[in-house]
């Protein structure tokens, strides 16, 4: 499947109807999701026939993409039942048999049971703004404990140095695969501009 085909496909994925500010809900745009997934699949072969986890799956655009690319099973984790409802609808519409979802608080998960179980973890975690300070790193820590091979994630470019330090502390290799511009449309009333570009790193983490 070509990247453009994947992107067209992901444009069919329904997104949040009423995004929740406190949970930092923004949909992952089909273009960005397609770029991520295409690279993970073609450059690293970390999706097809693999056990994949999607932390903070939201409406499931990354999970749907992973399933379409042939993941053995993709398990999406999210705290919000409204998002999971939309995710379920997407899974039905795409008629996908290889996605499960679990409602839970990723930050409260007990690592041991999931320890290194997943081949690959993919995610677009909350950036950790406003009331969620530090959440991006909590997600990353959990992802690393759950993964056997690699974690693919999006983080604000402005936090790159900070993340690199943490990666060193955790003895994890970090590779910035691409710098992306994440355009967030005005989804909340307090957003004054019609859209804002945030510079985002698409990063691959793996154990040293």
């Amino acid at each position, binding site marked *: 499947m070509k990247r453009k085909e994947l992107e067209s496909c992901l444009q069919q994925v329904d997104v949040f109807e009423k995004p929740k500010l406190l949970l930092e809900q923004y949909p992952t745009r089909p273009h960005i999701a397609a770029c991520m997934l295409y690279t993970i699949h073609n450059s690293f072969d970390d999706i097809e026939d693999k*056990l994949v986890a999607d932390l903070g799956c939201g409406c499931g655009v990354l999970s749907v993409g992973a399933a379409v690319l042939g993941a053995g*099973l993709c398990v999406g984790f999210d705290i919000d039942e409204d998002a999971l409802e939309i995710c*379920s609808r997407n899974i039905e519409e795409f008629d996908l048999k*290889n996605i499960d979802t*679990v409602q839970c608080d990723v930050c409260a998960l*007990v690592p041991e*049971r999931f320890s290194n*179980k997943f081949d690959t973890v993919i995610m677009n975690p909350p950036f950790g703004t406003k009331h969620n300070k530090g959440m991006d790193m909590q997600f990353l820590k959990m992802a690393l404990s759950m993964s056997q091979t690699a974690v693919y994630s999006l983080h604000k470019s402005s936090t790159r140095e900070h993340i690199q330090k943490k990666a060193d502390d955790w003895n994890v290799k970090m590779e910035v695969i691409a710098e992306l511009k994440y355009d967030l449309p005005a989804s909340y009333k307090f957003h004054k501009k019609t859209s804002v570009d945030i510079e985002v790193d698409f990063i691959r983490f793996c154990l040293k």
Partner: protein
Amino acid sequence: MLLLSYLRMKLLTHNMLTSHVKGVTKGYPLLIKATEVKLTDVDFNSEFVSRMIPKIEWSVLVEAADTLGHLNDLPRDLPPDYESSEDFLRKVHHVLLEVEVLEGNLKCPESGREFPITKGVPNMLLNEDEV
């Protein structure tokens, strides 16, 4: 609009879930009480199944399948040369990926706390007093 068939929780996913209610030291395995189970068709991939076996708790899978009435003739003990037996791998594939719980709950073996499964999605969120 097509009739929606509900989503499901596969036994591969169940195999990894734990209860972490405050004070619980052994919240695994979760007992499945299913009121609605569905069988589905998933493409068989022997390599994937073979790789999943070392990741799972075999006895927990057997127990879960048995509880749901879908153990069939899956052996309770893992045969030593399972990678080379397609017949065996197909049986494992069926139980891991094709038996799905739509409605029911998962019960913590220590605290008795029940985590509901609704439309195939297990809800593992704890209340404030359980954290």
